[in-house]
């Protein structure tokens, strides 16, 4: 392979790589902010950090509430029907799957990101 041909091939590969990254970028993350979730209307995944002090379980109604701050800095109360997930207290960040209903975010599911530290108990 001549040097010139090799350069052409390398440039083509680099262009392909850049195209690959840009083409997938927007489709890559399912996580949105509360504002985007409200705009969507339907089910969305909002990722953010939890104010652990705000977490409370109402045993009468069986509802779990906590305040979630999304990546844009907006905080909203999330309502979830059921007990908090097992790893909730250890969560680094939380994803609430559901939709915006007025001032609260009604979650059908709560996903947690645990710190992955591989040490014994």
């Amino acid at each position, binding site marked *: 392979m001549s040097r010139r041909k090799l350069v052409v091939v390398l440039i083509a*590969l680099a262009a*392909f*790589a850049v195209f*690959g*990254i840009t083409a*997938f*970028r927007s*489709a*890559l*993350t*399912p*996580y949105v902010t509360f504002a985007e979730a409200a705009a969507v209307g339907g089910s969305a*995944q909002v*990722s953010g950090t939890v104010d652990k002090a705000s977490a409370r379980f109402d045993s009468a109604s069986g509802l779990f509430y906590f305040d979630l701050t999304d*990546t844009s800095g907006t905080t909203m109360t999330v309502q979830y029907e059921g007990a908090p*997930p097992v*790893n909730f207290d*250890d969560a680094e*960040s939380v*994803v609430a*799957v559901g939709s915006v209903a007025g001032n609260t975010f009604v979650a059908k*599911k*709560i*996903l*947690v*990101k*645990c*710190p*992955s*530290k*591989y*040490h*014994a*108990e």
Partner: protein
Amino acid sequence: MRHLAESAVAKWALGIWMVLVITGAFFYAPAAAVLGEMSRIIYFHIPSAWVSVLAFLMCTVYSVAYLRRRREMFDAAASFAAELGLLFCIIATVSGSIFAKSAWGSYWNWDPRETSIFVLLLIYGAYFALRSSVDDPARRGSLSAVYGVLAFITVPLLVFVVPRLPAVQSLHPDGPIISSGGSLDMDSKMFTVFMASLAGFTGIYAWAFNLRLRAWRIINEED
């Protein structure tokens, strides 16, 4: 390398090694805090992902070799490497999904890691669709070799770059293999089992690949 992979001693040693790895994964290494017993899946999930990347790399190496020398054996070897890569990629996906259910709370929620491995499965699935659609061996060899090289460009992007682009958040942690900083936060017993498993899985890949190539040689090079 060829002699090593073909010797009966190496085969038995690999078998015993994997028995030790599996035993070690369940009885020697402690369960991780927070993640609990489920954390043991890392001794199988991460090595599968590693072997998958390694196999896809080998597919590219043989593809380039085919394009340069046009020997049918290189084309066959590239396809065998891709087969194993796809197999281990599926294992990594399934074990990852099970792990995600226990650690995050959902089998599949299109996390960037899940999306990128799904795209990877499609890309290498298409490699076999391409192979089976061309009958002429020389033409099939050339086309799939070029595709094999192009496909591998997406591997480092999908596995290492895309999930940690700024603005892309993920529930998936930066593991030992895909870690950006290279810091390994792991208990020493876990680390021992983990490294042994990486070596074992790599051995399984080498053994399976060699077996496939030997079978091909017997059929195609009758001498």
